[in-house]
């Protein structure tokens, strides 16, 4: 009995961990796509950026801040040995783990910002269709580097990263999920706050009516840049957290998992609405776990791998949403108008 109970708890913990990670990534997409109207088809660019940053830096940073003697070992070939040594430090003291976590997050944020700036160059001048293609192209780049440049994350096999929650011992999953949920809550509140600032209102103005936004005297390219950078930072942090949670990283961040699925979650919940992002993410994972549950039974019956049903179903779900309920579950509520521009629009 205990055994089944444990299984359910673990399942729930992992579910919430993934919801939290995706919520952070999705908030990144939301501020770009939902709020500012940028056709972001390359979210995976920032996610993989953060993920690879974690993969590259986590062990190195651990070695550095804990003053571990590497004995001349290379971080790729000696990955397992060195990571294990870092783990013994994070196991000893929660503060060690959190210190490493925070530094990795900051590093990922910096990388995300840089990637955001790079990818914003096309966003400034291209219209949505060209922009979508360009960003899609950007999205593919890091996987190529990750695969071809072994010193980054060890090529196709990847590397493992330290467990920043090793101090929790048997309750590692409780600690990690709680941390992630706190971070996700912070991200959510942060974006909610941004939306309500004058900057956030400008973002919406850009999405709804560029000409009007321009006439208000706002520097459009600059604002777009800011929206992209904020979103990129969040998506990058999400990617780093994903790697830290999973314990390893490989150059396999696909368009499907990190561009299409976030879109799906946003469409499901309602583009633009922040609550919608939350609802969409949570709803999606509920549906997904139901699918997983039935997958188990179907696996034996079908002559093909059940994962293909995922793709088929998801593609169809999004098309159905687009055709029948493009506004999603939670349509965007107009914010309480405080600026003249907003109220004159009403």
């Amino acid at each position, binding site marked *: 009995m205990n055994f089944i109970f444990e299984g359910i708890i673990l399942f729930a913990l992992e579910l919430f961990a993934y919801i939290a990670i995706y919520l952070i990534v999705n908030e990144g997409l939301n501020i770009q*796509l939902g709020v500012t*109207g940028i*056709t972001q*088809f390359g979210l995976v660019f920032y996610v993989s950026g953060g993920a690879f940053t974690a993969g590259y830096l986590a062990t190195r940073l651990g070695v550095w801040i804990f003053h571990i003697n590497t004995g001349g070992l290379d971080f790729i070939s000696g990955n397992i040995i060195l990571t294990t040594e870092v783990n013994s430090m994070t196991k000893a003291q929660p503060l060690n783990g959190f210190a490493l976590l925070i530094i990795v997050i900051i590093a990922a944020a910096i990388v995300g910002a840089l990637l955001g700036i790079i990818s914003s*160059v*096309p966003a400034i*001048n*291209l219209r*949505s*269709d*060209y922009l*979508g*293609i*360009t960003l*899609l*192209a*950007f999205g*593919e*780049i890091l996987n*190529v*580097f990750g*695969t*071809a*440049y072994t010193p980054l994350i060890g090529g196709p096999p990847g590397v493992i990263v330290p467990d920043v929650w090793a101090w929790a011992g048997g309750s590692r999953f409780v600690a990690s999920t709680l941390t992630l949920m706190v971070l996700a809550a912070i991200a959510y509140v942060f974006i909610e706050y941004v939306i309500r600032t004058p900057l956030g209102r400008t973002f919406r103005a850009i999405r709804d009516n560029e000409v009007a936004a321009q006439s208000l005297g706002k520097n459009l390219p600059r604002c777009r840049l800011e929206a992209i950078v904020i979103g990129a930072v969040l998506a990058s942090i999400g990617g780093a957290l994903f790697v830290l949670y999973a314990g390893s990283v490989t150059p396999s961040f696909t*368009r*499907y998992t990190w561009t*299409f699925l976030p*879109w799906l979650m946003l*469409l499901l919940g309602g583009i633009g609405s922040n609550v919608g992002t939350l609802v969409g993410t949570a709803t999606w994972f509920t549906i997904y776990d139901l699918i997983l549950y039935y997958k188990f039974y179907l696996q034996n019956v*079908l*002559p*093909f*791998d059940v*994962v*293909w*049903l*995922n*793709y*088929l*179903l*998801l*593609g*169809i779900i*999004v*098309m159905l949403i*687009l*055709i029948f309920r*493009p506004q999603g579950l939670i349509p965007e509520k107009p914010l309480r108008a405080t600026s003249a521009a907003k109220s004159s629009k009403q």
Partner: protein
Amino acid sequence: MPFIAPFTIAETLIYASLLSLMGVGITLLYKTTKVPNFAHASFVTLGGYVNFSLISAFHWSPYLGLPVAFVVVGGESLLLFFLVLEPLRKRKSSVALLMIATLSWHIAMLGFLGAYADSLQTFLRVPTRNVVLSYLDFTLGGLPGIFFVSITVTVVAAVALYFVIERTNIGIALRACMENQNLAASVGINTTRMLGLAWFLAAGLAGVAGALLPMWTQLNTSSGDTLIAAMFCVSILGGLETLYGAFAGGLILAFAQIVGTTMLANVVGVWVTGYEPVVPLLLMAIVLMTNPKGIGGMKVWKRFK
């Protein structure tokens, strides 16, 4: 200048041919339906598996399946167009939504193709991943048959396309739709049917490219995904003003990617070849950011009109 083996040139021309067949469809669809079609990736893959199925199940000669691939993929694209895109277009949906619709269709097709490939493997007991069929090819003067077939097919397609578009009434109607759909409707052109035709042609050509693919390189359910960036690159390089630009775009990208990387490898080392997939991405980004009209839009082409 470093020596480029004739074999490399042959590879480049094969790649250029396949790219052109894929890219011209993207341009055609963009000009008519005003949407970059992400589902093009699965059009190619589907074409590959249609041909592969015919070869594995019925032992067809590898090139006989080309017309079948053309028709099947062309027909499949009509499903996407009429079931998904038309309802959205009628509702005047934004380009972003249309794009995500094509991406969703692609994802669904990935699932379908994956399931299909798995099932085929179960029932026919042949491997359906990393499919390579070059062993079935003929040789002529030391060169593989795919070299002659792909170039011929591409040239024929280009000529046929030119003839239809420039010299027939259907072509005029298509060009009219590309320019102004309301006006086209007001002179009695059934724009929906014209667009359907455009989709059928574009997807058909992509299907043919896919059918040829395993004669040259591996065919996987992910083949389309791997090539989609190159397809868009070709379309953009060729410029979206003119259809035929994609053929030039195919040549340029193929040379840059294969010959260019080879030459670069001779200079800086073999490690460069791992970064080959970046070439289309970079080219595309550069063109889009400096001159979105691509080569087809540049003044030089106006003189040739």
